[in-house]
């Protein structure tokens, strides 16, 4: 029988645009120490350490090596993974496999990125294949702009709806002490005054570049119950990568291709007996790099029917007080240290299950939560978390 895996410690840094006061190792250490404090463990209790980061952002070839002492690798087994935007969830998956397999009983999982070190857009543009991609890469922003255009066309969503998503994210971020962008946005009109970056994406529609780290401590069942009074069970994980779409990177404007998100949630739901996600899952922390994409993801994950994502936001269904809260943390649009972002989604979902999310705790009781990650090209990782087995 595979071991059951629980999250027994959660820690993150206060995410922000620049951290000139710390180097990458020190910043990562903050999250590690916070997770250890949360679990009331010491680094000596950790049996293996796993990390995710996109090292091209910091121009550090082997970041896990550089922070071996600070982040808890020294003298321990472990490794680093990298899958672009989903790295922070791929490391959660690694932790899941290594603990479920019985190879380790207590593992430290770290997602970390210090984007003030380098040029994020240049590093993302370098994800294009060097011998083909120079032609017409537009960076992530261009790709999400195209996706927003498609969504507008196919669903009938208006810019007002995207603005409502942005408002929700900001309202939630203002209640989350760890979130990066806390703008105090007051109205749809205010959002619609924001200038266009790449039409139809406005400056406010897109996620920031943040410096931040998030650490989780995983434990096998027998250890979890001793370490934590409120272990959060990481019940299942589904990673789905995919070939680049023919006519897009994060979206398929032809409407003919298969989305990793669909395949991932169909597999995850089937394995876990979920036929009605809105009923079986209580809330979700999803990786939405733009507000338009959030509405699209509601549809991808079957939180609503096709073309209806904008209705959920219009009706307030996904608010903190709503019937199916999504991103009570403020989401990616408020905080995006790329290597850490997917880990933060899992951490935030776990905090909700524990009832420890403070001011951004959702009103309804959360027994089951889902976290998603997104990377290039449209790679997806889903995590299913539960309060009890």
């Amino acid at each position, binding site marked *: 029988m595979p071991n059951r895996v629980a999250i027994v410690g959660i820690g993150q840094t206060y995410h922000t645009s620049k951290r*000139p006061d710390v180097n990458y190792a020190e910043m990562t250490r903050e999250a590690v120490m916070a997770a250890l404090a949360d679990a009331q463990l010491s680094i000596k209790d950790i049996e293996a350490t796993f990390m995710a980061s996109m090292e091209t952002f910091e121009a550090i070839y082997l970041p896990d090596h550089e922070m071996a002492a600070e982040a808890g690798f020294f003298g321990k087994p472990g490794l680093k993974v990298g899958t672009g935007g989903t790295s922070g969830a791929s490391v959660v998956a690694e932790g899941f496999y290594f603990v479920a397999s019985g190879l380790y009983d207590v593992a430290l999982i770290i997602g970390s990125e210090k984007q003030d070190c380098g040029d994020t857009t*240049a590093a993302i*543009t370098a994800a294009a294949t060097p011998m*083909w991609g120079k*032609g017409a890469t537009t*960076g992530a922003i261009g790709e999400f*702009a195209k996706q927003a255009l498609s969504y507008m066309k196919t669903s009938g969503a208006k810019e007002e709806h995207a603005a409502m998503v942005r408002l929700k994210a900001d309202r939630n971020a203002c209640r989350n002490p760890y979130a990066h962008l*806390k703008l*105090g946005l007051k109205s749809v009109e205010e959002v619609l005054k924001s200038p266009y970056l790449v039409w139809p994406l406005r400056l406010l529609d897109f996620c920031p570049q943040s410096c931040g780290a998030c650490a989780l401590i995983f434990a096998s069942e027998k250890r979890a119950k001793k370490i934590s009074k409120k272990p959060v069970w990481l019940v299942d994980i589904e990673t789905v990568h995919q070939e680049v779409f023919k006519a897009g990177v994060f979206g398929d404007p032809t409407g003919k291709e298969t989305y990793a998100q669909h395949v991932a949630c169909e597999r995850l739901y089937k394995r876990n007996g979920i036929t009605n996600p809105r009923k079986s899952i209580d809330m979700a922390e999803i990786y939405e790099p733009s507000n338009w994409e959030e509405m699209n993801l509601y549809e991808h994950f079957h939180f609503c029917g096709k073309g209806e994502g904008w209705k959920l936001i219009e009706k307030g269904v996904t608010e903190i007080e709503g019937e199916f809260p999504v991103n009570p943390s403020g989401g990616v649009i408020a905080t995006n240290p790329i290597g850490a972002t997917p880990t933060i989604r899992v951490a935030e979902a776990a905090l909700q299950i524990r009832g420890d999310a403070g001011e951004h705790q959702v009103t309804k009781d959360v027994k089951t939560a889902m976290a998603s990650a997104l990377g290039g090209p449209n790679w997806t990782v889903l995590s299913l978390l539960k309060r009890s087995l």
Partner: protein
Amino acid sequence: MAKKKVKETTEKTPKKEEPEYIRIKFNQPRRYDWSTGKYLGHFYAEAKENKKIMGTRCPKCKEVLLPPTPVCGKCKVATGWDWVEMPQTGTVFQYTYLVFPLWDPHYGERWANPYASAIIKLDNGVFYRHFLEEQDKEKLKEGMRVKAVWKEDYNERGQGPGDILYFKEIGKE
């Protein structure tokens, strides 16, 4: 449901004296010498020698793959050596107009801005991403008929997709 009283944390903390942080600047070109290999190499050769755009056909799904590749990712089978010449004309399927300059990470230069890039549906149905010649945002539209414009000087070619300068609206030659 009664609304819980929430503590807003948007109050800006008073700005304290920022200490001077010592930063390390690191600016170093790192050179690469990539091989195009057999498949992309054939594309590059045909572009340079004959100003042709070549794709490989997957034996299973029969789709033409651009860029050419040894394995059809979706079918997960080897593509063999079945080459198809692409038409040089197509229709703009989707375009984006970039206003801020991007760094070209491979050459360290700033790309001139603004510029338009597009996904062009070549006349045989295959999608191809490239630049558009039109610099005026108002004149760009989906459905525009465009044609590839090549670097005419043989010695300047050998950049693969870069051998095509841009796609220009047909009727504007």
